C-alpha cells in the first residue's frame, strides 16, 4: 500500500467520519488550544515515570504481584493502564517504549540470559494501553456502562493473555504461579483493572479543568468541551482511523511474515530438511506478538503525525473546496438575487420619482423645488445604476437576448444625440455629429442594445472629458445585397487611457485611475456591458487612445437593410423629429374618459393618478387582480392599466381571467401592462400575453400621455393646443413659451412658477430688461473699487441673483450666487476670474430679450410730437413721485413719457431715466431729471 493510497484512505475515512469540515476545524482549534508546552512536558514526564515504575515492578516479582488467600493479584499492568488513560494512547506508547527498552536492558544484563524473544510478552501492555487510551479518547468515561464494558474487556485481555502465555508459550517462566487457571487469572487481574478505572473516572470527573488540560487526551473532558455539542466532542474523540491503520499494518506485517515462513518452509523442503522440526506455529506467534509490540506503537506514532499533516492539508483542501462551491453558489445566488431585485428596487424608485415629480409640479416653494430637482437627478442616476447592474447580471446569467427589430436609424441617432447633447452642454463640451447622409434609413437589428452600447460609450466620453468635445461619427459599407457594416465611432478630447490600462477598461467593477476619477459616478460596469453586448452581436470594441489627449472608441456591426432609401441629411431628420416630439409634448385633457389603474401598491396608484392630474381624467383604482375582475363587470372603462407584478393573480393571469369572464363589459377596452421589469423583449412578451401595450415603471409621463392619446377614444381627448392652453400661456398679450425660449438659459417653468400670470411675468421681464445695464454698471463700478467695496459688491450681486432667479435665469443666478459667496469669502481671485464672464452673460440677456415681443416696449406705437414743456412737467412729477417712492405714479409717468418722440440726445437720457425708475433709484432719477 503506497503512501498515497494510505493518505487517500485516510482522507476518505476522515470525510466519512467527520462529515463536514467545520468539525475538523473546530477540533483542530480545540487541540491546538490545549496543547501548551506544559501539557507536553507533564504528559511525557508522566508517561516516562509510569514506564520506570513498571520497570521497577517487573524487576521484582514481589512488587508486581501480591497474594491474598492463595489468589495472586497482579499489579504490574496498573501503571500501564493509568499511563495510557492519563496520557492518551499516543503518549502511552512512550511508557511502553520505556518498558520495552528497560526490559531489553534487563534481559541482556541478566545472568541467566533468558531468551530475548521473551520480550514479545510485553504485547499485553500494548493492548491494554491502547484499549484504555482509546476508551478515554472515545469518551467512554462519561458513562458507567461503558466503564464496566471497558473493565470486562481489560480483565478478559489480561487473563486470557496471561493464561495463553503461561500455558502455551513460556510455561517455565510462569512456574511461580501456583494456580494458573483462567478463573484465577481473571480474579487476579480484577483489582488493578477496577482500581485503574475508578481512579481514571474520579480524575476525569472531579479534577479541575486546568489539571485535566495538562494530561494527554484528558482535555476533552474539560467543562468547555463537555458542554459543547456532542458532534464536536465525538469528532474530537474519534481516532478510529488510527486503530484501523495500526491493525492494517499489523495484519500486513503478519501476512508478509507468514509468506516468508512459507518460503522458508519450501526452502527447507527443497533442502530435504524436515520442516516439522521447526516449530513454525510458536515461532510465528512469538513473531506476531513481537510485531505487535513494535509495530503498533510505531504505527500509532507515525499515524498521529501523518494524521495531523493530512488533516491540516485536508482542512485546507476542504475549505478551498467549500469556498469554491459556496462561491459558485453565491455567484448563482447573486445573479438570481439581482434579477429579482429588478422589481424590488425599481418599485420603490418608481414611487420616489413619481412622488417627486408631483412635488416638482405642485410645490410653490423654490427651495422645495430645488430639493425635488436634486431628488430627481439622484433618482435617475440611481435608476441608471440599477439598470447597469441588472443588465450585467442578465448577461452573466445568460438571460440577455439580442432581439432584432426593424428600426429607423435617424430616430435612433436622434435619441442618442438628444440624450448626450444635454450632458455635453452641461459640461460645456461641444458635440459634433458626422453621419453619412447615404446611410439607409431603415435597418434591422437590436436597436435597444445598439443604443445602449453607443449611450455607454458616449456617456463615458463626456464623463471623462473636461474640455473640448465629443464627436460621434456613423458610416457604413455595403457588404451584401441586404446587409451593411455599420461603423460607429466616438472620439473625445478627454483624459485618454494609458496603454496598460486599456485591459482594465473592459473588466467589470474596475475603473481606470480610480483615484483620479473617484468623483466620477458609475458602477464601473458600463464598458463591460458594452463589450459583452458587442460580443453577443458578433463585434468587438476597439480603442485608440493617447493618454492625456483623448480616445477613439469604435466598432462595426453587421445590420440587415430593410430599405435602401438613404436617410438624408441627419440634422434635417433630427429637426423633423424634434418638432414632432414637441407636438407630442403638448398635453391634453380628457375629462370624460374613465381609466382603471390596477396595482397592489397604493403608493403606485397615487403616483399614477397624480401624474395625470392635469389631464382631468376620471380614475378608478383597484388594489388587486381580483378587485379588478370585479370592477370590469360593473363599469365600462376607456383604458385599463394593469400592473404585472402583483400577488396572486398577477397581471397576466388577471388579464386572461378578465378576457374569459363572461360578465366582463370591458372586452374591447385596451389593457396596458405596467411593469418595473424592463427586460428586453418585454413588449413582445406582453403583447403575446394579450396586452395591447406596455409601459415601464418608473412611469415616463410623456410616454404615458402619448399612450393615452393613442388609446383613448378620439372624441374624449382634447389636445391642449386647441384647449385652454393658449389662454394660460398668455395668448392675450401674445407671448408663448416658444417666444420666451429665445431668452437663452431661461427656465420658463421655473419663472412661471414664481410669476404665474403672464402679465406679472412680462412686467418682471421688462423690469429686468430695463435694468440690465444699470445693474451691470453698478457691479462693474464696485468691481473697480474692490476690495474696499467688497460688501457693496456682495450686496449688489446678491440682488442681481434674486432678480435673475425670479425670471428663471437660473444659470445667471447661479453665477451670481458663486460671486456672492466669493465676495463673502473675500476671494478676489475667484471674483476677478468670474466677474467678466458674468458681466458678458448678464448683458447678453438684454439682446436676447429684445427678440421677445412685449419686453423691450412696443417701438411701433405712434409717437407724439416732442414737447419739451410737457416732458419737463412729467419729469418733475416723476422726480417727486420717485422721491416718495410712489411707483404707480412713476410708472404711469414713464408710460406717458414713452409716448413722445424724443430727440436723440434726450431719448438717450430718457432710457437712463426709465432704467433708473425700473431700478427704483430715486437719487439717480433726480440727478438725471435735473440734467435735462
Amino acid at each position, binding site marked *: 500500500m503506497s503512501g498515497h493510497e494510505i493518505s487517500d484512505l485516510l482522507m476518505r475515512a476522515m470525510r466519512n467520519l467527520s462529515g463536514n469540515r467545520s468539525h475538523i476545524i473546530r477540533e483542530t482549534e480545540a487541540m491546538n488550544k490545549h496543547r501548551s508546552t506544559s501539557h507536553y512536558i507533564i504528559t511525557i514526564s508522566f508517561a516516562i515515570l509510569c514506564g520506570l515504575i513498571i520497570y521497577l515492578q517487573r524487576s521484582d516479582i514481589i512488587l508486581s504481584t501480591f497474594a491474598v488467600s492463595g489468589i495472586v493479584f497482579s499489579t504490574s499492568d496498573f501503571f500501564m493502564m493509568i499511563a495510557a488513560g492519563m496520557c492518551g494512547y499516543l503518549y502511552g506508547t512512550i511508557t511502553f517504549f520505556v518498558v520495552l527498552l528497560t526490559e531489553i536492558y534487563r534481559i541482556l544484563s541478566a545472568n541467566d540470559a533468558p531468551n530475548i524473544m521473551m520480550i514479545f510478552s510485553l504485547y499485553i501492555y500494548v493492548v491494554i494501553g491502547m484499549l484504555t487510551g482509546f476508551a478515554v479518547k472515545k469518551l467512554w468515561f462519561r458513562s458507567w456502562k461503558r466503564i464496566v464494558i471497558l473493565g470486562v474487556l481489560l480483565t478478559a485481555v489480561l487473563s486470557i493473555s496471561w493464561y495463553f502465555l503461561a500455558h502455551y508459550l513460556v510455561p517455565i517462566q510462569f512456574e511461580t504461579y501456583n494456580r494458573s487457571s483462567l478463573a484465577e487469572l481473571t480474579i487476579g487481574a480484577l483489582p488493578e483493572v477496577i482500581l485503574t478505572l475508578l481512579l481514571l473516572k474520579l480524575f476525569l470527573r472531579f479534577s479541575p479543568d486546568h489539571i485535566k488540560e495538562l494530561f494527554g487526551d484528558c482535555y476533552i473532558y474539560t467543562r468547555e468541551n463537555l458542554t459543547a455539542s456532542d458532534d464536536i466532542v465525538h469528532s474530537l474523540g474519534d481516532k478510529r482511523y488510527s486503530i484501523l491503520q495500526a491493525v492494517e499494518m499489523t495484519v500486513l506485517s503478519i501476512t508478509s511474515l507468514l509468506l516468508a515462513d512459507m518460503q522458508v518452509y519450501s526452502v527447507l523442503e527443497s533442502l530435504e530438511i524436515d520442516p516439522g522440526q521447526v516449530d513454525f506455529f510458536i515461532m510465528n506467534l512469538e513473531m506476531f506478538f513481537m510485531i505487535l509490540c513494535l509495530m503498533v506503537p510505531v504505527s500509532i506514532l507515525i499515524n498521529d503525525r501523518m494524521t495531523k499533516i493530512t488533516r491540516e492539508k485536508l482542512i485546507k483542501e476542504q475549505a478551498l473546496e467549500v469556498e469554491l462551491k459556496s462561491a459558485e453558489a453565491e455567484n448563482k445566488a447573486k445573479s438570481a438575487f439581482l434579477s429579482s431585485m429588478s422589481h424590488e428596487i425599481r418599485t420603490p424608485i418608481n414611487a420616489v420619482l413619481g412622488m417627486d415629480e408631483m412635488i416638482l409640479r405642485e410645490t*410653490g*416653494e*423654490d*427651495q422645495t423645488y430645488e430639493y425635488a430637482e436634486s431628488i430627481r437627478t439622484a433618482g435617475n442616476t440611481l435608476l441608471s445604476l440599477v439598470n447597469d447592474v441588472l443588465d450585467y447580471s442578465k448577461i452573466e446569467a445568460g438571460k440577455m437576448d439580442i432581439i432584432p427589430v426593424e428600426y429607423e436609424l435617424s430616430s435612433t441617432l436622434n435619441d442618442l444625440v438628444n440624450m448626450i447633447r444635454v450632458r455635453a452642454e452641461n459640461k460645456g463640451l461641444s458635440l459634433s455629429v458626422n453621419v453619412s447622409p447615404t446611410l439607409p434609413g431603415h435597418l434591422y437589428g437590436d436597436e435597444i442594445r445598439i443604443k445602449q452600447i453607443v449611450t455607454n460609450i458616449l456617456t463615458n466620453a463626456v464623463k471623462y472629458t473636461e474640455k473640448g468635445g465629443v464627436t460621434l461619427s456613423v458610416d457604413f459599407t455595403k457588404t451584401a445585397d441586404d446587409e451593411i457594416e455599420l461603423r460607429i465611432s466616438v472620439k473625445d478630447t478627454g483624459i485618454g487611457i494609458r496603454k496598460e490600462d486599456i485591459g482594465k477598461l473592459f473588466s467589470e467593477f474596475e475603473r481606470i485611475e480610480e483615484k483620479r476619477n473617484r468623483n466620477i459616478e458609475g458602477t464601473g460596469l458600463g464598458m463591460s456591458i458594452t463589450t459583452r453586448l458587442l460580443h453577443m452581436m458578433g463585434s468587438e470594441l476597439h480603442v485608440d487612445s493617447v493618454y492625456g489627449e483623448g480616445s477613439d472608441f469604435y466598432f462595426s456591426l453587421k445590420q440587415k437593410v430593410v430599405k435602401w432609401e438613404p436617410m438624408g441629411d441627419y440634422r434635417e431628420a433630427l429637426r423633423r423629429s424634434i418638432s414632432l416630439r414637441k407636438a407630442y409634448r403638448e398635453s391634453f385633457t380628457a375629462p370624460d374618459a374613465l381609466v382603471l389603474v390596477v396595482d397592489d401598491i397604493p403608493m403606485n396608484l397615487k403616483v399614477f393618478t397624480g401624474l395625470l392630474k392635469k389631464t382631468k381624467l376620471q380614475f378608478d383604482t383597484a388594489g388587486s387582480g381580483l378587485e379588478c375582475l370585479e370592477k370590469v363587470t360593473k363599469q365600462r372603462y376607456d383604458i385599463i392599466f394593469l400592473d404585472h407584478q402583483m400577488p396572486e393573480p398577477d397581471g397576466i393571469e388577471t388579464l386572461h381571467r378578465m378576457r374569459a369572464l363572461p360578465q366582463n363589459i370591458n372586452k374591447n377596452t385596451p389593457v396596458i401592462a405596467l411593469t418595473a421589469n424592463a427586460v428586453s423583449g418585454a413588449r413582445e412578451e406582453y403583447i403575446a400575453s394579450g396586452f395591447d401595450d406596455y409601459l415601464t415603471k418608473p412611469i415616463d409621463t410623456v410616454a404615458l400621455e402619448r399612450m393615452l392619446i393613442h388609446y383613448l377614444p378620439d372624441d374624449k381627448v382634447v389636445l391642449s393646443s386647441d384647449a385652454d392652453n393658449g389662454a394660460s400661456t398668455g395668448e392675450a398679450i401674445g407671448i408663448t413659451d416658444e417666444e420666451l425660449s429665445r431668452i437663452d438659459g431661461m427656465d420658463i417653468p421655473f419663472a412661471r*412658477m*414664481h*410669476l*404665474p*400670470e403672464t402679465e*406679472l411675468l412680462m*412686467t*418682471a421681464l421688462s*423690469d*429686468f430688461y430695463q*435694468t440690465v445695464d444699470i*445693474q451691470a454698471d453698478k457691479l462693474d463700478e464696485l468691481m473697480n473699487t474692490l476690495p474696499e467695496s467688497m*460688501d*457693496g459688491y456682495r*450686496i449688489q450681486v*446678491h*440682488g*442681481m*441673483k*434674486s*432678480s435673475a*432667479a*425670479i425670471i428663471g435665469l437660473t444659470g445667471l443666478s447661479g453665477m451670481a450666487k458663486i460671486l456672492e459667496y466669493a465676495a463673502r469669502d473675500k476671494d478676489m481671485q475667484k471674483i476677478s476670474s468670474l466677474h467678466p464672464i458674468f458681466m458678458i452673460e448678464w448683458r447678453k440677456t438684454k439682446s436676447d430679450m429684445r427678440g421677445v415681443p412685449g419686453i423691450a416696449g412696443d417701438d411701433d406705437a405712434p409717437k407724439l410730437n416732442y*414737447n*419739451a*414743456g*410737457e*416732458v*419737463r*412737467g*412729467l419729469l*418733475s*412729477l416723476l422726480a*417727486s413721485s420717485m422721491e416718495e*417712492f*410712489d*411707483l404707480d*405714479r412713476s410708472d*404711469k*409717468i414713464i408710460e*406717458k413719457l414713452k409716448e413722445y418722440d424724443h430727440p436723440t440726445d434726450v431719448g438717450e437720457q430718457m432710457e437712463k431715466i426709465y432704467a433708473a425708475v*425700473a*431700478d*427704483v*433709484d*430715486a437719487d439717480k432719477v433726480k440727478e438725471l431729471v435735473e440734467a435735462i
Partner: protein
Amino acid sequence: MKTILLVGKLNDLTKEIKNYLSGDFDVQLSSDNTEVLSGMLKVIEPDLVIICMVGMYDGHDAIFQKFQLDYPSVPVLTIGTKDEWERFSRYYTGDQFTHVIRPVKQQEVYEKVREILGTDDDVEISEQKKRILVVDDHGPTLRNIKAMLDDVYDVSVAPSGAHAMTSIGKARPDLILLDYEMPVCDGKQTLEMIRAEEDIADIPVIFLTSVNDREHIEAVLALHPSGYLLKPPVKERLLAEIERALSPSS
C-alpha cells in the same frame, strides 16, 4: 386720499400751502408753465386744482382756459391778491372756480378746500385695502413683489431701512416685508429700529431673504419676525404668508 394739484411758482407761499395740506391730501406741485402743467395732467387726475397767482402774468391765461376747456369738472381754487384776482378773473367764470383773497391764513385755505371737496368719508372706505410696505434695496425685486401684491393690497415701497422709517412715519403700514440683506442698514437693524418705536413696534414684519444658510436663518428667526420667506418669492406663498400674518389670530 384726495389729490390736489398745486399750480404756481415754487416759492414760500406754495411751499407753505403744500405743507399745510399734505397731512390730509395728496398735494402735487406743478409749475405754472402751461406745457409742464399739461404734461402733469396726463398723469395726475386731481380732485382739486389750486392756483397760486403770485408772479403770474397775462400769458398765464392759457392755464385757466385749459382747465375750463379740458377739465371742466375739476374744481379750481385760485389764491391771489385782489389785484391779481381782478387781472385774471376775466379769463374764467362759472362754478368751477373759487377764489380766496390774499393775504389769507392757512386755516382759511384749508377750510375752503374742505368746503369744495366735502368731508373725507370715503377715505376710510378706500383705506380698507391693507397697506403693505416692501423694503428692499434692489429695485427690480421691489417691483416684482409690488406687482405680486398690488391686486390685493395697497403697496408702498422703500429702497432702504431709512426710507422705510420715513414711509412708516408718513403712513403706518399694516405689514412690512423686509429684505434681510441691505447695504448700510440691513434688515436686522431696520427691524430693530421698528421695534424700538413704541407706536409701530407691533407692525407684523415678514422677512424676505435669499440667504439660506442655517446661520442666517437662525439670526433672522431670533428677531421673531411674523414670517419668513425665501427669495425669489412665489406669489401664492407670499400672499398666503401675508394673509396669515395679517389675520387677527396671529
